[in-house]
């Protein structure tokens, strides 16, 4: 689960990780009030969406088509970005009015962009150096890893590609937690000196604690800033949480912003279906994540494009199959539906009855291709063949994919 920058910074502040003072605002007047409450003479007004690259983003409503396309590719031309530096309260008001309610397109949002409902007004900060710090799981050794780089502001993947030596790593023993010497190793490797070393040790220790106690799956500080006075502070922060651990963090669940998520995916989640919306024309209903991916791949091999990833799970019931049909048929791009079920624990005759009931409930206006295999497959096929719904039955996945692609032509 993702949260906004302003929410992540509130979490960090609670754990004693240094962040600039800031306040969230949902109207230009609130933004002005926030800025005057923060004091000082320089502020940054930042668009709050669940996507990176905001500074280089451009607003759909305020830019030309070329500018938006350039922003979506990550190479912006002139124009107003999603993060604005302001030197007066009037500028803050102006910035918030331009941002709020408009749609920001960045390299990560796709061409349709994300509507900005909230801005974060933050005190300006005296930047001497920009660094990078990330915390995540290293799957090769099952340990939490802290990863730092001297190239702040650049995506870590890019650094890994063109300058891997700039990345320094430490692996944390879960029994001891992060040790001060490890944090010092990273600090010195980043070229920090004087007061900044201790400030970095404190920062990293607190960040690790926040990561572990909040069940994060990623915490990324980019840039991590060294101020003129030698303080280490988080200028930006991206934080995601382990969905499997949300049961013990009701406070995190409360921060979820459903507007940032695809409505169909939210709906699917309520029925315990794993669903991801894609751009193609062939809706997929499959049991098992691996088989669902393999079904999408096979559609592509036959020259089609999947409209979604949908895993009904190992023990799906009729209600779930019905919900799945509802979600798939709601997508206007869908020109055919491919059902691929391996009946194991879930027997094929039960699935067949589920499909028929679902079609009766939901109605169906596009061709339906069904491939069943496994337990009671013959009985399942017979039930479908004798029903009043029109089904194209396929013997194997390749045949099913070919039929689905054919049906969309």
């Amino acid at each position, binding site marked *: 689960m993702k949260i906004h920058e302003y929410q992540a910074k509130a979490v960090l502040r609670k754990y004693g990780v240094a962040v600039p003072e800031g306040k969230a605002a949902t109207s230009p007047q609130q933004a002005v009030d926030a800025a005057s409450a923060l004091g000082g003479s320089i502020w940054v007004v930042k668009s709050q969406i669940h996507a990176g690259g905001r500074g280089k983003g451009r607003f759909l409503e305020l830019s030309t088509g070329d500018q938006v396309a350039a922003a979506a590719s990550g190479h912006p031309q002139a124009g107003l970005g999603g993060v604005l530096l302001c030197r007066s309260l009037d500028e803050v008001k102006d910035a918030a009015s331009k941002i709020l309610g408009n749609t920001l397109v960045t390299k990560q949002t796709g061409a349709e962009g994300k509507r900005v409902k909230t801005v974060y007004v933050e005190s300006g900060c005296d930047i001497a150096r920009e660094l990078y710090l990330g915390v995540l799981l290293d799957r090769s050794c099952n340990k939490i890893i802290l990863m730092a780089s001297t190239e702040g502001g650049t995506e870590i993947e890019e650094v890994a590609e063109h300058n891997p030596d700039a990345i320094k790593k430490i692996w944390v023993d879960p029994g001891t937690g992060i040790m001060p010497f490890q944090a010092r190793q990273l600090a010195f490797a980043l070229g920090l000196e004087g007061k900044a070393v201790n400030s970095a040790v404190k920062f990293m220790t607190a960040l690790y604690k926040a990561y572990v106690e909040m069940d994060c799956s990623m915490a990324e500080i980019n840039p991590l800033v060294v101020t003129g006075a030698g303080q280490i502070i988080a200028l930006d922060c991206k934080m995601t949480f*382990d969905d*499997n651990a949300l049961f013990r963090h009701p406070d995190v669940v409360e921060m979820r912003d459903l507007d940032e998520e695809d409505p169909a995916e939210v709906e699917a989640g309520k029925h315990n279906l794993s669903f991801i919306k894609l751009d193609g024309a062939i809706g997929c209903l499959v049991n098992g994540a691996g088989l669902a*991916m393999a079904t999408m791949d096979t559609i592509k*091999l036959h020259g089609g494009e999947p409209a979604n990833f949908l*895993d009904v799970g190992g023990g799906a019931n009729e209600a779930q199959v019905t919900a799945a049909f509802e979600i798939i048929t709601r997508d206007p791009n869908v020109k055919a539906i491919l059902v691929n079920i391996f009946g*194991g624990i879930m027997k094929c005759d039960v699935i067949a009855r589920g499909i028929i009931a679902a079609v009766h409930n939901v109605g169906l206006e596009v061709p339906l291709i069904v491939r069943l295999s*496994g337990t009671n497959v013959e009985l399942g096929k017979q039930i479908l063949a004798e029903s009043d719904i029109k089904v194209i039955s396929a013997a194997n996945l390749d045949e099913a994919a070919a039929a689905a692609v054919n049906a969309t032509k």
Partner: protein
Amino acid sequence: MSIMINKDTRVIVQGITGKSGAYHTKQCMAYGTQIVGGVVPGKGGQTFEDTGVPIFNTVAEAVEATGANASMLFVPPPFAADGILECVDANLDLVIAITEGIPVADMVKAWPAIAASKTRLVGPNCPGVITPGQCKIGIMPGAIHTPGRVGVLSRSGTLTYSAVGQLSEVGLGQSTCVGIGGDPIIGTKFIDVLTMFNDDPGTEAVIMVGEIGGNAEEEAAAWIKANMRKPLVGFIAGATAPPGRRMGHAGAIISGGQGTAAAKFAALEDAGVHIVHSPGAMGKRMKELLK
């Protein structure tokens, strides 16, 4: 021959009275698996429905009373890591964790103790392990399997069944089938199972099914290139998956250009694995190789 489990494996079930635990215990017993006990804290002294299988309060007690050497774990996610460590404490040879949805942090914390022990963990979030005709520990449909000489290993459940179904269709049976699980932290990785298949005289060839995310397939490819003496057919699911999205399995995510299907296919091909781009072609390709 087989790997990990056979007709002599003595199995306890942690969480035997839960809905899934109870259902699958009966399925495993019907298949012929020796289920010798169950563990449910607080229900020690009872028996499991009308099967006569005794229930114990702790794994240690169950092992002492029954001589069990393996556990099938259905404990709910918040308590599952605890259940795994209880098997480590009782010195079991094998714990197969079916539970889906264990917090990653719990596994990070438990891992050093698991790694330092003699207990092998398979999963979590896996369909289990089956040696056809001898022993089934897991939730896979037993009836689709046939005893034979092809090893199957995979991160996913239904895709494993699909590979098994294809093998049976072309007249090839399986030595042992291992679902290693779709979570970011799993106890048994591709290389562990490949090593066992390589050394198992009863396994003649192997089907390996990977998926996007992480770099376990790339690591396996490097190992295969250096060590594997038996032919392999390989498939990777998720060639069409968009980056940054979790495809059902917690571990199936392409992040920062890492973990793509293309990179994994290339690594396997370079290691001499016979890759198929269509998941429906795994059985046929194996049949050609074993002619």
